[in-house]
């Protein structure tokens, strides 16, 4: 096993020079698992990559960010999709199992708070108001309780299930603690169900990824969010320039150093970052900014990977 890893390292080292673009027959299977938010990116990358390197099989699973890290730190996967940075206890598990890894930003995501299109009062909500609605034990049941200027329309809440990275992200940013949320809302792992729910009731409110808003324009209306510096509408521009806070976020992949020593994984990772724009577009995310892309690319280039 060690000898094999060493041989592969040697290969990786030899290829690392100016190997891009040549037709060296790469082969092997790359195992990716993790966040269902990041999966469309990895799937797009896998698909495009395989068009050029048909010998490499890429498997993309969706066990969720946490589930993905569990497999990653057990050495079962090569790359882990993550919609948040790795947690301390997860990092500890990786360390315990001798899995060293690198973190790369692959795209940007925005969370959108959506309401029914007929809702003409809530155009901008502050993070405090969101917190008041969504915090654990919240008894807010009518829009009037959110702001006295709003009508007395019953508030119906929809959101992702507790396994979702979106749920972790929203609760962390809005309620101040990941996983802390009121529980009397309609949860669904399927964002389409949230769209349908919000579409079906005038006083409804929900949240999910920005891409779903663009896909469902007309069905739901995205609300501007005031994170302290005024109302900002969710869009690609505002997420990228960092003004859409706190609900804009970067998405990551984690690659184990052991896997990076394999030429096909290194090539795949480089491909992932270099073709980020088309990959992010296909997956309905916001591509990396030029600086982000350069930073990630520099990181990959500098990594030789150690077994």
């Amino acid at each position, binding site marked *: 096993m060690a000898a094999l890893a060493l041989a592969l390292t040697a290969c990786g080292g030899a290829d690392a020079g100016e190997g891009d673009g040549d037709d060296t027959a790469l082969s092997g299977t790359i195992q990716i698992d993790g966040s269902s938010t990041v999966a469309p990116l990895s799937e*797009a990358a896998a*698909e495009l990559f*395989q068009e050029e390197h048909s010998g490499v*099989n890429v*498997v993309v699973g969706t*066990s969720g960010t946490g589930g993905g890290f569990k497999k990653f730190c057990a050495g079962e996967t090569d790359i882990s999709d993550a919609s948040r940075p790795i947690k301390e206890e997860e990092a500890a598990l990786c360390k315990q199992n001798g899995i060293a890894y690198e973190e790369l930003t692959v795209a940007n995501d925005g969370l959108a708070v959506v309401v029914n299109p007929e809702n003409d009062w809530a155009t901008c909500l502050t993070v405090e108001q969101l917190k008041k609605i969504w915090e654990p034990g919240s008894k807010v049941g009518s829009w009037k309780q959110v702001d006295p200027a709003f009508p007395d329309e019953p508030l119906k809440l929809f959101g992702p299930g507790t396994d979702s990275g979106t749920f972790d992200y929203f609760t962390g940013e809005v309620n101040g603690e990941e996983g802390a949320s009121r529980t009397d809302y309609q949860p669904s792992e399927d964002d*389409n169900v949230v769209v349908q729910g919000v579409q079906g009731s005038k006083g409804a409110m929900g949240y999910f990824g920005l891409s*779903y808003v663009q896909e469902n324009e007309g069905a739901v209306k995205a609300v501007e969010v005031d994170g302290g510096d005024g109302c900002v509408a969710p869009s690609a521009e505002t997420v990228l320039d960092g003004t859409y806070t706190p609900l804009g976020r970067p998405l990551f992949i984690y690659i184990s150093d052991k896997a990076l020593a394999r030429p096909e994984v290194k090539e795949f990772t480089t491909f992932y970052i270099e073709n980020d724009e088309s990959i992010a577009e296909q997956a309905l995310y916001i591509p990396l900014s030029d600086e982000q892309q350069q930073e990630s690319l520099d990181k990959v280039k500098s990594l030789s990977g150690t077994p």
Partner: protein
Amino acid sequence: MSTPVLGRAPSRERWNGRLFQAVLLACLGVGILVLAVLLYDVVTTGAGRFNLDLVRNMPSGRPLRAGIQSAMLGTIWVIVLVAAMTVPLGVATAVYLEEYADPARWWNRLIELNIQNLAAVPSVVYGILGLAVFNRALGFGGSVLAVALTLSLLVLPIIIISCREAIRAIPTSIKEGSLALGATRLQTVWRSILPNAIPGTATGAILALSRAIGEAAPVLLVAGGLVFITFNPEGVLSQTTVLPVQIFNYVSRPQEEFRVVAAAAILVLLLILLAMNSLAIFIRNRFHRPW
């Protein structure tokens, strides 16, 4: 009918009989109506994408290029393997239980009880078992073999039960006649019982395999989540996905067009099922002998 009906039944009784018949018809109607609505919905949604490109293309995140090739081949690999494993094993078990096992022994009764109960275990439980045993402990990963073994466990009890029913339906006179003519027990099983049990067993086996082909829940667990795979299986240890999982993958995507692709994939799955059921009917008619 042992007692002949004398005269006409009182009109009240006749009326009750008609009412009962009407209720039965209505029950049948509910099932057929639901099926018709479902078929209509799937056909109208999926017709636009139901073409050769669907099976020529690999799964894709680009809705217009999305196909189902790897999932369809995965399904075929898995189902052939399941059939190869479960039918011989199921038939052998059924023959043992019907012809050899002594029902007075407690272990035979225990086996029987277990088989009856296993047939009623929810499929997702087999998924967890498959994940722990075939994927992890035996190290098959999310391969064709691991998926096929899990689905085999799932449908084996159904095959055993249907084969036993088929054996029991053979008149004892046939078996006793064979034994009376001096045939050994093995010869009797091989030449009298098995050929006569083919129609019933084939129907049961195909129905069981049809169930296996449509399962998504256990495959989701064994194959490692909602996997996205764009290569065809090359052997029993290749990682794979199956049609129900791919359909699930497509319907959970945001773009509307994927719902059309999913409906077209459902049509392909239905066609495979239809082909299997036709085969069952053919075998039943071909081997059916009236006694």
